[in-house]
Every structure is written in C-alpha cells, then in structure tokens.
C-alpha cells in the first residue's frame, strides 16, 4: 500500500529538528533510515501527520569514542557501524550481533538509533545496548538528557522518549572483554528473532546475559555460571520467569523451549572464547 498524506520536512540542523519536534510533538515522527517506519507507514500502521527527515544531518552521522563509550549518532547506518574498523576491538558483542540485523540491503539504510527508537522486543541492537548497560542521548529545546537503556525501553514498541525529544545518539560502553557470543533463532536469516541471546563474560565465570524475544523488552541478568550443566538450569528458570508471548512468529511455549536450548549453547560459545 501507499502511506497516508503527511507534511515532509527536512531540517538543515539538529537545532531545527528539535524546534520542529517542539512545534509538532506527537503529530510528528522522526525519519532516519525508515526501515521500520516506512514499512509501517506503507501498511498504514503508522500515520504521522508530519515526517521530520534527519537522515542527511551530518552532525548526527558520526561514530566516536567518547571516554569509556562509543557514541553512535542518529544518522549512522547499521552497516556503517558493522564496517567500523574498531568495532571488533571495542564492541565485540555488536560485532557478533550486527550480522543478524535485517539484511545487507536494509542495514545499508537502517540506522542504529532508529532500531533503538523503534524498540521491538526481539531486535538485536536494543538487546545489545541493554546487555552492555548503554545509554540513549535525547535532546529537546529543554536540554539534553541521558537515559539508561533499561529506563528508555518501556515495553513493546514503547520508549521513554518525550514527544519533543530527538534521539541524537546512543552510547555503548567500551567492552574490556572479548569473551562474548550472540545467537538467535528466526524463521529465515534476517527475519524477526523468535529468541535472541547475548552473553558477555566479565571475569572468570561471571557474565551478563541478555535475552530478546521473550518479554515486552530485553531482559538482562547477571549470573555466575560454571559450565554447561549450570547454564541449563539457569535458562530453565529464566524461561519460566520470562514466560514468552504468543505472536505470528512463535508461541510462548516455543519461545521458552528455544531459550532453554539456545541459551546454554551461547554461554558455552562465550566461555570458549580466549580472554
């Protein structure tokens, strides 16, 4: 289908974009890569009255190391981050997760921040940001604030962004470990994950475990797991705790079963990585 009519505005600066958001608020949607938003508009699931296109804003098209974090601007595409030469050294979890995001063709246009803004509970980038304990940088005329990933993503496609706020960047903490693993199960490569699991080992057997596709937002746990038998027990309990949900992609029961089977494999893979 075709989208409903809307006013299209392409500001020349972040200040202009923020001023437009202050003016239109709820009536406006921010367009960056459009790989979720345009699809939803074509299907008329989303019907914004005003579309604010930030894709060309050079101020937002930057990946930079700022202190102990990698800051990714709102116009940076998923493939640009995937091909960033320092990715494997600074953010090995993202290096493992990004190949699962959509397809080559959608990563060429889809943005890192757009995926955070869309807040799909099965998405890889919000799961990675939550697992790493990253932050979202929001700007409005009222000022700039940072929100922890867990406080930002509130539920299914729901975030704490106020209608006048623009996500200008996300900050991924630089990882000190190389012992990471990421896996997901989808109907076909690049499709929505039924279950996604991210594991980052911090030291010895202490790890952060992030799970997507099981609840209305990513679930992150810290745990100490000694080997595979221990991992089985952990994911058994987690599967029942998170319950899963039914949708067109999978039943709650299948999600629980997938988590019990895939979770221990991901932990095993991370434990095998050299420090």
């Amino acid at each position, binding site marked *: *289908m*075709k*989208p*409903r*009519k*809307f*006013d*299209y*505005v*392409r*500001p*020349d600066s972040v200040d*202009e974009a923020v001023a437009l958001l202050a003016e239109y608020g709820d009536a406006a949607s921010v367009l960056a890569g*459009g*790989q979720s938003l*345009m*699809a939803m508009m*074509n*299907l008329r699931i989303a019907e914004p*009255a005003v*579309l604010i*296109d930030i*894709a060309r804003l050079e101020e937002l098209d930057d990946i930079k190391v700022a202190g102990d974090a990698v800051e990714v601007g709102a116009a940076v595409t998923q493939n640009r981050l995937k091909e960033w030469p320092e990715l494997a050294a600074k953010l090995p979890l993202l290096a493992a997760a990004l*190949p699962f995001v*959509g*397809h*080559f*063709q*959608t990563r*060429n*246009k889809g943005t890192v921040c757009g995926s955070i803004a869309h807040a799909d509970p099965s998405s890889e980038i919000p799961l990675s940001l939550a697992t790493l304990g990253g932050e979202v940088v929001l700007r409005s005329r009222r000022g700039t604030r940072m929100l922890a990933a867990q406080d930002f993503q509130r539920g299914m496609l729901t975030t704490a962004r106020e209608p006048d706020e623009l996500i200008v960047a996300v900050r991924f903490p630089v990882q000190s470990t190389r012992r990471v693993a990421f896996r997901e199960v989808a109907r*076909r*490569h*690049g499709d929505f994950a039924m279950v996604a699991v991210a594991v980052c080992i911090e030291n010895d057997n202490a790890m952060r475990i992030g799970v997507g596709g099981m609840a209305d937002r990513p679930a992150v746990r810290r745990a100490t797991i000694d080997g595979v038998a221990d991992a089985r027990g952990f994911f058994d309990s987690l599967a029942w705790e998170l319950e899963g949900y039914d949708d067109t992609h999978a039943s709650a029961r299948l999600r629980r079963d997938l988590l019990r089977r895939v979770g221990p494999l991901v932990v095993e893979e991370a434990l095998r990585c050299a420090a």
Partner: protein
Amino acid sequence: MRRVNKDERSRVRFTLNGRAVSGDAESRMLLTDFLRHVIGATGTHVGCEHGVCGCCTVLIDGTAVRGCLTLAVQAEGRAVTTVESLASPDGTLNALQLAFQQHHALQCGFCTPGILMSFTDYLARNPHPTEDEIREVLSGHLCRCTGYAGIVAAVLAASGGTPNPESRSRT
C-alpha cells in the same frame, strides 16, 4: 529547510543512471512509484511494498536500498542507479547479467532487477565472496521460481568463485 506539504506537488530532481531527471511528486510518493510512473523507468519492480521481498532494490549513491522504503523526495540530489544501467546501450549484457542467463538464475524474472542491483553493490565491496556470503546477501530477496541455486551459481561464476560442497542449503 526543505518542506513539502501534504497536498503539494513538488519538483524532485536527481540523476538516474547518470542522466539528470526531474518530475513532480507528492511528499508521500515512494521512489519506486516515482521511477515507474513519473519518469517511466519500469525496470525497477514493486513486490510487497514493505521492504521484505527486495524486488524494488536500487542503488542510491552506490548503495543498495529498498526503493519502496524510500520517498522520492529523499532521493533529491542523489545518484540513483537502476537495472536499466547494467547492459550497454546496444543491449549487450554485463558480466553479472550474462552469468544469470547462463546459470538459469531466473525464470519469470520479476525479482531479478532487485537481485542484480544488490549484487552490483555487494560485489563492488567484496569482489570475491564465498558461497555463504552470497547466500547471506540473497536472504534479502524473495524468488519464487528458482529455488535460489541458479542465482548462487551465477553470482559465484560472475565473481570467479567456486561452490562450497559443504553448504547446508545445497539440494
């Protein structure tokens, strides 16, 4: 600041296959519809119109993207490249197109323009991909005729690669 109000038709200009083109578009007009209905360049096909099937894939500034998830007004000032650019003006097919012909990589041909454009971008970045890499890029397209084997063989042939006997998808 560029602005196109919802009831307005605005002049949109970009280069298509190296040639300057322009036409009037509403803000909501998709690049695919602009190419096909305003410019008359019907090589780019429209399948699902929500970014899943990949038939509408075109290059914008050399990068393969979904034409149906792009507004015409977003292409302003850009270089758009479509399947019409691949063959020589006298109709001689390029190496990738010839490989598709030789390896029966199409039957009805509806999805082919998008697939050719994806690999035009991908092979420029990675001229000698493995079979698995080719399959990963191909996962962004749906083809209901071929079963994909011919397409993989064609891209491998065009890039000088050899099939992987271990590939789990081989039938």
